[in-house]
């Protein structure tokens, strides 16, 4: 194999390649005559990689997933970095780091609770994930009250006593759960109620994983998930015992009236709430509170 290091770079602009007998003399035409664009903003500079002009870069701000609370602040910070990045490559590096940091945090929050699972079983692990990692709640079979984190975010020790009791309800409203976070839930066999409302990182890929609850799930809410679309909702047809599906406030779903009809056709025994037949005929509602 060729050693890559054997082709050293000439400093930009490059020297002409050594003349070769196969080349017709001076037959370069438009290619050879035109000098390469000199702008080089970063190492390894690329004329193919010319970046967007500042105007174009800020135009990209309009399309963002999150739009409320701390997310809006983060978005604003990101937009500022982005604008700076048009002139300073340092700011762009910073933006890259910040994105990477956010991804790492998200991954930590959605980590698999393997240790708890080994010690206490699938159900306690799922409840532990919901309470401790997501700040949500869980309900075990035969009990009326929900287990939720206390004021300091800790789970009650009672949880660990419930080793062989199946979890029947999980509430992850407003949490950062995503595709990999569902690793903690997919082994539940008796889950009847799942609330995923307002989960910013829940996408269509994650919805496609809910098929494992096909025999048990009765109620599901994906209300207010900004990244859920009708493509992911289509994957819910596996949940054939579903009785109630909350699909309100889904900003990424177009033609809500039609989607509701299709969902009802797909899940004939299920009550679909939060989408009106007339939706899509009027201006879309504002972002979820």
């Amino acid at each position, binding site marked *: *194999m*060729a050693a*890559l290091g054997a*082709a050293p*770079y000439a400093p930009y602009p*490059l020297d*002409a*390649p*050594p003349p*070769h007998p*196969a*080349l017709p003399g001076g*037959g370069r*035409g*438009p*290619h050879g005559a*035109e000098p*390469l*664009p000199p702008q080089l903003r*970063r*190492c*390894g*500079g*690329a*004329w*193919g*990689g*010319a*970046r*967007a002009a500042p105007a174009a*870069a800020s135009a*990209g701000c309009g*399309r*963002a*997933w999150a739009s409320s609370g701390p997310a809006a602040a983060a978005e604003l910070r990101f937009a500022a970095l*982005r604008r700076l*990045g048009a002139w300073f490559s340092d700011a762009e590096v910073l*933006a*890259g780091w910040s*994105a990477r940091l956010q*991804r790492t945090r998200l991954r930590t929050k959605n980590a698999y609770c393997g240790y708890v699972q080994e010690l206490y079983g699938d159900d306690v692990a799922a409840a532990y994930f919901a309470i401790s990692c997501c700040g949500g709640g869980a309900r075990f079979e035969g009990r009326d009250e929900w287990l939720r984190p206390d004021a300091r975010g800790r789970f009650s020790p009672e949880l660990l006593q419930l080793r062989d009791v199946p979890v029947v309800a999980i509430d992850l409203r407003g949490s950062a759960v995503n*595709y990999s976070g569902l690793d903690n839930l997919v082994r539940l066999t008796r889950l009847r109620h799942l609330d995923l409302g307002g989960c910013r990182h829940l996408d*269509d*890929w994650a919805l*496609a*994983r809910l*098929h494992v609850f096909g025999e048990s799930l009765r109620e599901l809410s994906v209300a207010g998930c900004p990244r859920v679309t*009708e*493509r992911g*909702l*289509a*994957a819910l*047809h*596996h949940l054939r015992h579903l009785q109630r599906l909350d699909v309100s406030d889904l900003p990424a779903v177009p*033609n809500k009236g*039609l*989607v509701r009809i*299709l969902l009802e*056709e*797909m899940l004939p025994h299920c009550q679909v709430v939060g989408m009106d037949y007339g939706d899509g005929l009027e201006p879309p509602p504002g972002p979820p509170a």
Partner: protein
Amino acid sequence: MPGGRSRSPPPEQADVVVVGGGVVGWAVAYWLKALEGRPGAMRVLVVERDPTYSRASSVRAVGGIRQQFSLPENIRMSRFSASFLRTVNEHLGVPGEPPVDLQFNPSGYLFLASERGAAALERNVRLQRDEGARVALLSPARLKEKFPWVNVDGVALASYGLEDEGWFDPWALLGAFRRKAASLGVLSCVGEVKSFVMSSNVGLVATGQEQPVSRIRYVNVHAADSREYQPVSCAVVVNAAGAWAGELAQLAEPRLRLPLEPRKRFVYVWHCPDGPGLECPLLVDTSGVYFRRDGIGGNYLGGRSPAEEDEPDTSDLEVDYDFFQEKVWPELARRVPAFAALKVRSAWAGYYDYNAFDRSAVLGAHPGVENLFVAAGFSGRGLQQAPAAGRAVAELVLRGRFQSLDLSRFGPGRLAAGEPLAESAVV
């Protein structure tokens, strides 16, 4: 975007020249930059002859991704691709640009098998499950219960992918690879590679014998509609020319013909208000006819691979509507009775990057040319395997061997040795 930033002439020197700016070519270029270690360590050039992608297979694909294959390598590649697509913004997100939206439909593939094919289907599903894919086997009764619109006559068994299967927007993936690779410093230019400048030497091969070894010194990039060309001096060439990869390889080594050739395939779009609903998967019938839902407005698209003796002429991309009437529609209406009443809305033709030898990808070093690598022959699976194949070829170029996925069985050596590595689940 098409043709936007790439009107500049090619540079005079590059370390790696990737010939072919389709999804595989850009994936190779992206992974070369992602794995290069030090930023800017390499100059990678992607040469694309048609910036509008008017004949490119990448953008004429149906866009499916599945795990239901018969070769473990294909399953592993698809599993990697699925996880890549799932986290596409971690890989291909560019700071300061909108996030990539692949419009993935997680609706699964549904393969139907007749009495004759049932055993093979079951064997394949067992293999797929061993590899970690989530695939369900359905009996005809269960199939009817799940998808009441299917006519189960002649179906002995069905397999249905539960996760990581479905379809997505090919343009979005191609555009994301291009945007990311360009932001990492990959150069691109418009032009056609019509010749190479070779040098040959006597080299020592593994067996200890001396043998002539040829090397590509320059890639001659011809400008469109002109006799001008620019020689690009390079260390490594990657042949990602898709359906034209065989032709390109022959330019470098005329004595060795790779069986990589274009095959024309038709995709028809039809409207059927009473057709399958939102749950409609990509269904592959026992006859080989396939279809999927397209959006939520009652549109479907599908087609069929013609029999070997009916292969259409590949010189143009004309659509043969009779093929739908005679070969596709009867099978569709038999399998899904609602399709007896449908209206064809449109159709297009595209090229399969077809490996006539065994319909499997060809990945690896060209046997006759020292510094030429081949990434082609995907036979209709190039789009879904591009993330994995791109990484594999980049590893091969940079490290000299496959690291993350062992794809050495896909090497071009099998073509010369006459040992087919056939994938039986071909659509």
